[in-house]
């Protein structure tokens, strides 16, 4: 049997933003624009849209599926390892209206492209005119400035995400600046973070921190304290190698390291764990977690019902987890790196084994 490939003629309409957007596979399923299901059933209402251009993202980050020099046509590229099917924007908005009762949080992800700001404005405006579900923007700093961030807020976005990804300037330089084409600038990212914090307010800006790009545990913990001080949210992502990207053969963080980083971030953010409670070895790896209070001890005993291990994401209207991205940084056949639902008893037992807390707390 032959499976014909789609053919494109020179006159064919270009399927690019703002008329077209990509949807994460999970979002497309929930909006019933694509068939499929999740391994474990749960309510999912975090809809992620991604801008789409023929020439793609003009950045060239070493770990990203959309990187400019990653082999393959942009149309065929995956992003966080899954396909992002393409749809007409108006059709997506109709589905958002139809299924608004299931929606918890919407997000438009920009890419680094000359049209991205203009198109984000147009799509933001269209969505906010039709749907009340809160809308975040995951922004591309090279395309923005203070005025533009203010304008996006005026159009209806209530939270800003910045994919800083690398938590130190050195790692950022290695992975995102010193690249074959389209290097990004650390200072530009921080300018946009600072403007966003001023404009959007406390706990309305989030920074994506990827675990596994070459940073140490100490680097990550330093970032958690710095962001907390400034009332900025840290969202953790586990590095997940994209085949054929320049980091395609780079190993993923061990599950033990990942779980410990999740736990420490939770303790820093929610229980005021002081920096003095953390000890690191010569290479910056977390080596000891002192328990300065009975509260911290209790959290370690109960694992706080698994809350530290749930997906970091923007909240829904009433503060509930809003953007839970199932299987965003792991395959369905792997252990849940972050849980899109409250972990159950069996999950908690597995998490406890993965943490190997007895090595840290004794």
């Amino acid at each position, binding site marked *: 049997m032959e499976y014909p490939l789609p053919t494109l003629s020179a006159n064919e309409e270009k399927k690019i933003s703002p008329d077209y957007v990509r949807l994460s596979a999970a979002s497309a399923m929930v909006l019933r*624009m694509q068939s499929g299901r999740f391994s474990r059933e749960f309510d999912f209402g975090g809809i992620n849209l991604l801008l789409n251009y023929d020439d793609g993202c003009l950045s060239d980050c070493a770990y990203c599926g959309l990187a400019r020099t990653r082999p393959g046509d942009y149309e065929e590229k995956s992003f966080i390892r899954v396909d992002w099917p393409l749809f007409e924007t108006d059709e997506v908005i109709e589905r958002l209206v139809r299924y608004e009762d299931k929606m918890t949080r919407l997000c438009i992800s920009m890419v680094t492209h000359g049209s991205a700001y203009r198109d984000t404005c147009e799509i933001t405006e269209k969505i906010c005119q039709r749907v009340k579900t809160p809308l975040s923007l995951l922004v591309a700093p090279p395309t923005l400035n203070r005025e533009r961030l203010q304008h996006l807020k005026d159009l209806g976005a209530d939270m800003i995400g910045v994919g800083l990804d690398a938590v130190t300037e050195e790692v950022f330089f290695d992975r995102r600046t010193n690249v074959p084409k389209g290097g990004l600038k650390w200072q530009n990212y921080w300018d946009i973070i600072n403007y966003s914090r001023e404009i959007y307010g406390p706990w309305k800006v989030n920074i994506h921190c990827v675990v596994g790009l070459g940073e140490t545990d100490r680097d990550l913990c330093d970032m958690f304290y710095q962001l907390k001080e400034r009332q900025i949210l840290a969202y953790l992502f586990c590095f997940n190698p994209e085949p054929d990207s320049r980091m395609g053969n780079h190993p993923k963080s061990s599950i033990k390291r990942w779980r410990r980083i999740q736990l420490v971030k939770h303790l820093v953010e929610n229980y005021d764990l002081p920096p003095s409670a953390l000890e690191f070895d010569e290479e910056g790896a977390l080596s000891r977690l002192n328990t300065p209070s009975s509260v911290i001890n209790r959290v370690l005993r109960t694992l706080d019902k698994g809350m530290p291990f749930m997906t970091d994401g923007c909240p829904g209207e009433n503060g509930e987890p809003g953007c839970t991205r199932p*299987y965003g940084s792991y395959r*369905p056949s792997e252990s849940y790196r972050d849980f899109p639902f409250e972990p159950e008893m069996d999950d908690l037992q597995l998490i406890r084994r993965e943490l190997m807390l007895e090595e840290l707390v004794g």
Partner: protein
Amino acid sequence: MEKIKDYQVQTDRYYDPESGFWIKEEGDVIRIGYNPLVQEGTGAFVSLMMEPEGTLLNRGDAFGSVEAEKHVGQLKMPVSGEIAAVNKRVLENPRLANLDPYGDGWLIALHPTGFEDEKKNLIHGRDSIVDWFEAELKKYQDKGWLAEP
């Protein structure tokens, strides 16, 4: 072949109501594959693993596992038997099971060990298959596993 809504359903074979697999007698072997509803409702397959030829398994035993974009699950034997052939093409390209579930996307062939007795567990005959498939289709729609126009 019967058209049920948007699905072309083969009625010349058996179906296992537990797994949804079709089962077709072909001489002394039985071929097994996904029905079009299960493959669509599971999503795009990205990985299939199956036990090797010669493995002897009972009905209900796992003969492999499947991973789709957002789903992972076991492949359960709809009937008992010894695996006579594994479709290597579908192992290399799991999307074949989405694109052509009755044809090139078949999964395994078996030498059955208790088929005559196990037939009672299976759906067979045009009317029974149509009734069962329509009920399954409604279930999948209610669960939200199928794209809507």
